[in-house]
């Protein structure tokens, strides 16, 4: 295995473009090293992106949007005084990943590019409308988070492409987000179901909504029908039931030891309701 620590994304991209065999980027390494050790993935080329300038920076831009460096850890996100005020759902979703030790290393980008359908931060990012900047041999492009995963362990990134920034939109007024997951334990487990909700209000009425489901299909889903179910409503009980039904209908889960198809299909509805209520309360400026 060759180890490289390039000083720029252009260099990282060129290294990946010219590499043969299996290539992995190394952010926090909390997936890469586990796969290396279990001999699941034995990279020929490992490209450490942590020596590139600015990869740990969390920046609020003039328009209120946020740019996060691709090596920013979960711990750095949780410790930031303002990021979690704007985007509590995204920060809490990231914070659910692993232990204190894992939080010291794990990144949003690694969670996304590892391609797990159960990745906790991904539904939260999809709901929030997060995009990533991708640097490749032909320059850079901006890609919506929901367009990155294409199946378990697979992404739409092509040879030589590396994620070079995470872009979170401006929060704006009267809006809130939330992420909830179900796991069989209280800590250190993989999501059986995850739900991210982001919404904006005009008075009491929902005027914008994005709902994303994790661990219930081969990729994280952005579910239009869930958004439609709550748009124009004040999140009354009938609306919540319609949201739950739309979430259950969108599921295409697997049966495994951690949750049956029937269980996942039921629980996704329950979590969608709860996450929507939290996002709604946050949009109203309540502490939730």
């Amino acid at each position, binding site marked *: *295995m*060759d*180890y490289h620590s390039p000083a720029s994304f252009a260099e990282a991209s060129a290294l990946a473009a010219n590499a043969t065999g299996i290539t992995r980027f*190394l952010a*926090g*390494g*909390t997936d890469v*090293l*586990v796969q*290396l*050790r*279990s001999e699941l993935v034995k990279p020929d080329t*490992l490209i*450490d992106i*942590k020596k590139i300038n600015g990869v740990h920076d969390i920046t609020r831009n003039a328009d209120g949007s946020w740019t996060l460096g691709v090596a920013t*850890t979960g*711990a750095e996100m949780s410790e930031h005084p303002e990021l979690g005020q704007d985007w509590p759902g995204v920060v809490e979703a990231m914070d659910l990943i*692993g*232990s*204190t*030790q*894992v939080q*010291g*290393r794990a990144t949003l980008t690694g969670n996304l590019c590892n391609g797990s359908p159960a990745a906790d931060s991904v539904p939260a990012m999809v709901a929030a409308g997060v995009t990533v900047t991708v640097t490749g041999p032909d320059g850079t492009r901006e890609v919506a988070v929901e367009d990155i995963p294409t199946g378990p362990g697979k992404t739409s990134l092509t040879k030589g492409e590396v994620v070079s920034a995470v872009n979170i939109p401006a929060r704006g007024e009267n809006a809130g987000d939330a992420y909830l997951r179900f796991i069989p334990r209280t*800590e*250190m487990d993989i999501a059986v179901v995850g739900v991210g909700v982001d919404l904006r209000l005009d008075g009491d009425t929902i005027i914008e909504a994005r709902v994303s489901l994790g661990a219930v299909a081969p990729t994280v889903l952005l579910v239009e029908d869930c958004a439609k179910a709550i748009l124009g409503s004040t999140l009354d009980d009938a609306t919540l039931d319609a949201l739950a039904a739309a979430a259950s209908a969108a599921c295409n889960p697997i049966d495994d030891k951690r949750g049956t198809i029937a269980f996942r299909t039921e629980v996704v509805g329950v979590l969608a309701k709860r996450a929507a209520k939290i996002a709604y309360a946050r949009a109203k400026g309540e502490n939730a």
Partner: protein
Amino acid sequence: MSKLHVSTTVNGDAVEYLCDPRETLLDCLRDKLNLTGAKEGCGTGDCGACSVTVDGRLVCSCLMLGVEAEGKQIETVEGIADGDVLHPLQQKMIEYAALQCGICTPGILVAAKSLLEKNPNPTEEETRYWLAGNLCRCTGYDKIIRAVMDTAAELREAS
């Protein structure tokens, strides 16, 4: 395969080693620097027995490559006592009999020390969450938690 040369600082001492890029920081600490305090319980980030701090941040040394230590400040359990004088956390762990086989203990000490540096007055819940990545198969955790809480109280009084 060519080995890579790494210069880093461990417990305040400048050290160097040659490693294969596949070797973890845990392998390097144990096999090249003879610092066998950090233990390999699982090798996959689940147990915390390999806990160290890197530039002040608590991490699993089994989830980091030896080459990634270049230019970093690493602290291991070997740096916790001051010569023969035990750190209050170590003292309390003994007082409370918060260990049996001892495999988890170095990781618990490093993790608990890092908690108290960040938060000198943690609640029991905060302490339990902070240490959730440090598994112990012997003690049932209660004595560990009490030892950490009591150390925190003692250090607060002392300061």
